[in-house]
């Protein structure tokens, strides 16, 4: 019986995806005067039932956050959102998760947010135990352009253009699993706060699991950018405008069901005017 399951199941799924955003180059939002750090560490081993719910929504602007739907000239805004939920019942559960949020300026090899989690679940043999878990990380960045001379430390970075053009980028990465047994690890991280435009915006997501059930991992994005700076309409009543020169929509989703021997997927996004 066991052999039969293995034959009909999915033996190996190994997929790596790298996305590099050059055209709609992000200019990170700089930190506010008051910065916050939040760290949570959770470690649970239980025979029975387990639930975990976590969420973060973080919005930040170079100007003022208000009800206005339009940005001022040279204003940049970013919204980051993260959610994770796990429900497991009638089984053996091991759950470990460490999450760090830091709203301060970051450098090129550091992150504003990072979550690392590990989940093991096995249903009791005499009960119909199951586990459902999902995780999502999203980043939405918009800009009406920036003066390059104000935004670079690198003396050569602003020689190509006097402005960093307007852009509007949104992307989401995540995964889910439901089934009766799983051993899972996932890492989600992102960076969008930096003092200068020398530091690119980044998001990374990776998941690795084996188990009995259905696993999915995905990304989706929409990147839009211009070549010229945002401008104030000469006619006075049209507010701030920007012209779009590039539009990219992309998505990918991988799903496996059955006796999953290996499911690995990594996704990496980088966007900036100065990159490796």
């Amino acid at each position, binding site marked *: 019986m066991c052999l039969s399951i293995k034959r009909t199941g999915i033996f190996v799924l190994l997929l790596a995806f790298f996305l590099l955003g050059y055209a709609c180059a992000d200019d990170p939002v700089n*930190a*506010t*005067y*008051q*910065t*916050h*750090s*939040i*760290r*949570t*560490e*959770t*470690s*649970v*081993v*239980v*025979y*029975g*039932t*387990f*639930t*975990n*719910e*976590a*969420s*973060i*929504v*973080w*919005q*930040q*602007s*170079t*100007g*003022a*956050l208000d009800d206005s739907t339009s940005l001022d000239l040279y204003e940049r805004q970013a919204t980051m959102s993260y959610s994770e939920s796990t429900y497991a019942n009638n089984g053996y*559960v091991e*759950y470990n998760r460490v*999450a760090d*949020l830091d*709203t*301060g*300026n970051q450098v090129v090899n550091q992150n504003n947010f990072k979550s690392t989690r590990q989940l093991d679940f096995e249903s009791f043999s005499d009960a119909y135990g199951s586990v459902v878990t999902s995780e999502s990380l999203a980043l939405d960045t918009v800009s009406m352009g920036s003066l390059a001379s104000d935004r670079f430390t690198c003396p050569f970075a602003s020689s190509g253009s006097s402005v960093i053009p307007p852009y509007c980028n949104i992307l989401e990465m995540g995964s889910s699993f439901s089934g009766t047994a799983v051993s899972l690890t996932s890492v989600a991280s992102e960076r969008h706060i930096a003092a200068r435009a020398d530091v690119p915006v980044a998001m990374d997501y990776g998941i690795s699991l084996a188990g009995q059930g259905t696993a999915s991992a995905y990304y989706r994005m929409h990147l839009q950018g211009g070549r010229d700076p945002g401008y104030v309409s000469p006619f006075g009543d049209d507010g701030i405008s920007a012209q779009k020169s590039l539009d990219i929509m992309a998505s990918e989703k991988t799903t496996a069901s059955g006796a999953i021997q290996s499911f690995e997927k990594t996704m990496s996004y980088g966007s900036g005017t100065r990159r490796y």
Partner: protein
Amino acid sequence: MRIIVPVSFALLLLLMGTATAGSIPAFCNIMEMGSSFSGKALSMTTITGDQYVGSSLFRPQTTTYSADIAGIGTATSFMRGTMNGASSSISFSQQTTASGTIMKYFAEYHWSSGGSC
């Protein structure tokens, strides 16, 4: 005979500030952390701490909470809060619950907030 042992702790911190000309921008932060347990067997340790009266602007405000539990029953811990400033808004929450024979339950929450140089 079943013995119910309810245990709960919560730590709530509300901080507000007002902008003054040429100084510190306005802010309004609130953070709550806590835990609870009900069941028939328990070994539990919690640690709470906060620091919000500082002698320096650059001594950050901090709130910490940890719960270390083993037992038979239901254990819950949580952290939730919002941080609002003129240019930023953050809402945050996490809640973890385990029921049954709890071999290990450890949750630690830390929040720090302060001015940047």
